[in-house]
């Protein structure tokens, strides 16, 4: 029997819906899982995802992609790139896998929720592929780092990180739990696939791939580029949902979901990706600054898409753009200063040469962040390394779960945005973080950040060792300077040269 042509059956099957006889529509698609928001089924049936694929096509393409990525890995294994990679780049990989790999597995659940409960048949169809995509991303990003567990226990954090109470893991879980694990299907399509995957995974998986290729890490470059080809397909689930909401009187609600998710994603990326791009990646491997990547991949892209969909730019857009000059520098300095509390070895990225690059990309860096690094360098040079580490904890934002930072030095502007709610004093790193909380206090008010847990007596003994134990960081896993402080020698050399 001849097979029907794709165009003869595809649209019928991808929009197939049914009329339940034994249960009600509400029982079949409960609102808290589905999120139809009162919009009728026949409207949801108009949902039109721009990227369409059949199951045979999907399987064939995915097989090719996997063959490609695994072949590159196998071929380059003998090359032992990791043995000769700059330690800053090795830290990049260790940080990436720990923060991302298990979140991909969690995303399978989010896609599965859409595959079962999305009110739009087209969304359910696409989410089945998304579910398989995320399974692949979880597996491949655990398999690749596993080959390196013989090098150090930090590589094992690809699997371990998100099972711990390490502060960065708490921040990542808080974000992903919010946007994809505890939302109805329509909200998940908007907050996870549109707000997060459209822009920010592009940044992590294509922007970082460019740096990886420049650095000579072709295995990592091919892996994360391969993943992004899936992301760019299943990320398109949110756009049609937004279109339906906007056309059916739900613009304000749609805008709010977009605004919350973009902001929360930004703060997480400022902590993880910002330091990687502007400090860990060796100078010669940096294709663009973090700010340049953000302007190209996030700001320009979202502006265009939001307006095309009939939405507005988020109300805080100017704040976000201004923060591109600052926030990630603070997150980097914080991560480096509290380096025992992370599962990778942060690279300082603060040699005179690197600082010149930072000043060029971020005019005023020396007058602000450079002032703090001057004190750190002086402590190394005058034999006071104990002063280059902390004796207390940074204040952590009750929304983003990352430290509250601002501009230091001559342009000092650090601010805590406090809020008293039902007798509890909350602390936020920005007006926008506080706004996210105020949008839905019931959702967020019970969460305990790392400082809240410390003050509640959950961390014993209440000191650095107790904190490390609570975070699951053991000797061999605890972070230290990626280059063993050899970068400080560049300053002595500079003094010698001047003499």
């Amino acid at each position, binding site marked *: 029997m001849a097979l029907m042509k794709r165009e003869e059956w595809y649209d019928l099957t991808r929009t197939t819906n049914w009329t339940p006889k034994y249960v009600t529509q509400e029982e079949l698609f409960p609102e808290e899982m589905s999120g139809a928001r009162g919009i009728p089924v026949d409207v949801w049936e108009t949902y039109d995802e721009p990227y369409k694929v059949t199951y045979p096509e999907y399987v064939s393409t995915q097989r090719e992609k996997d063959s490609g990525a695994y072949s590159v890995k196998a071929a380059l294994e003998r090359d032992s790139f990791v043995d000769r990679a700059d330690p800053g780049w090795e830290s990049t990989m260790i940080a990436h896998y720990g923060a991302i790999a298990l979140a991909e597995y969690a995303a399978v659940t989010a896609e599965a929720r859409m595959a079962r409960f999305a009110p739009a048949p087209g969304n359910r169809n696409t989410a089945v592929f998304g579910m398989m995509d995320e399974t692949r991303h979880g597996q491949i990003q655990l398999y690749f780092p596993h080959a390196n567990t013989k090098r150090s226990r930090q590589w094992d954090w690809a699997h371990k990180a998100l099972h711990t109470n390490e502060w960065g893991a708490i921040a990542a879980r808080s974000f992903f739990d919010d946007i994809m694990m505890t939302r109805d299907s329509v909200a998940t399509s908007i907050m996870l696939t549109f707000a997060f995957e459209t822009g920010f995974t592009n940044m992590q998986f294509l922007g970082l791939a460019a740096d990886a290729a420049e650095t000579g890490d072709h295995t990592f470059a091919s892996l994360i580029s391969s993943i992004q080809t899936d992301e760019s397909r299943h990320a398109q689930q949110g756009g049609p949902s937004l279109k339906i909401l906007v056309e059916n009187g739900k613009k304000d609600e749609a805008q709010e979901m977009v605004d919350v998710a973009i902001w929360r994603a930004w703060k997480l990326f400022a902590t993880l990706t910002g330091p990687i791009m502007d400090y860990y990646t060796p100078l010669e491997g940096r294709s663009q600054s973090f700010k340049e990547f953000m302007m190209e991949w996030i700001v320009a892209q979202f502006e265009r898409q939001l307006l095309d969909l009939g939405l507005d730019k988020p109300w805080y857009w100017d704040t976000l753009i201004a923060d591109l000059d600052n926030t990630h*520098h*603070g997150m980097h*300095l*914080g991560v480096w*200063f509290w380096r025992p509390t992370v599962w990778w070895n942060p690279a300082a990225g603060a040699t005179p040469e690197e600082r010149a690059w930072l000043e060029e990309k971020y005019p005023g860096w020396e007058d602000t*962040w450079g*002032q*703090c690094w*001057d*004190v*750190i360098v002086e*402590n190394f040079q005058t034999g*006071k390394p104990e*002063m*280059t580490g*902390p*004796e*207390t*904890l*940074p*204040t952590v934002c009750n929304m983003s779960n990352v*430290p*509250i*930072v*601002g*501009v*230091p*030095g*001559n342009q*000092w502007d*650090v*601010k*805590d945005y*406090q809020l*008293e709610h039902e007798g509890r*004093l909350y*602390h936020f790193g920005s007006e926008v973080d506080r706004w996210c909380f105020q949008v839905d206090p019931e959702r967020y008010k019970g969460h305990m950040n790392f*400082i809240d847990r*410390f*003050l509640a007596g959950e961390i014993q003994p209440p000191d650095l060792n107790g904190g490390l134990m609570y975070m699951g960081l053991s000797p061999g896993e605890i972070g230290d300077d990626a280059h063993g402080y050899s970068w400080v020698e560049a300053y002595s050399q500079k003094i010698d040269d001047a003499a």
Partner: protein
Amino acid sequence: MALFPIHSNFERDFVIQLVPVDTEDTMDQVAEKCAHHSIGRRVKAQPDKVLRVRHHENGTIFPRDMLVAEAGLRPTETLDILFMDS
């Protein structure tokens, strides 16, 4: 006497930090405890200046000998620590 957590927003530093003080500490002692975590770590000392404590939200500069217990602070309140001439 009781332990009282505050958050220190130290002038010229980049991050706010948790600092345990005592309800019987004077504001000068609060400033000194906060300085321990910033000066010489990421902020240069300014020997010709004194450190003063300011309420982060309403901008009130507290008298140097005022006790924490007298200042009407909420636990974990954020305080600014400033370099001033007097």
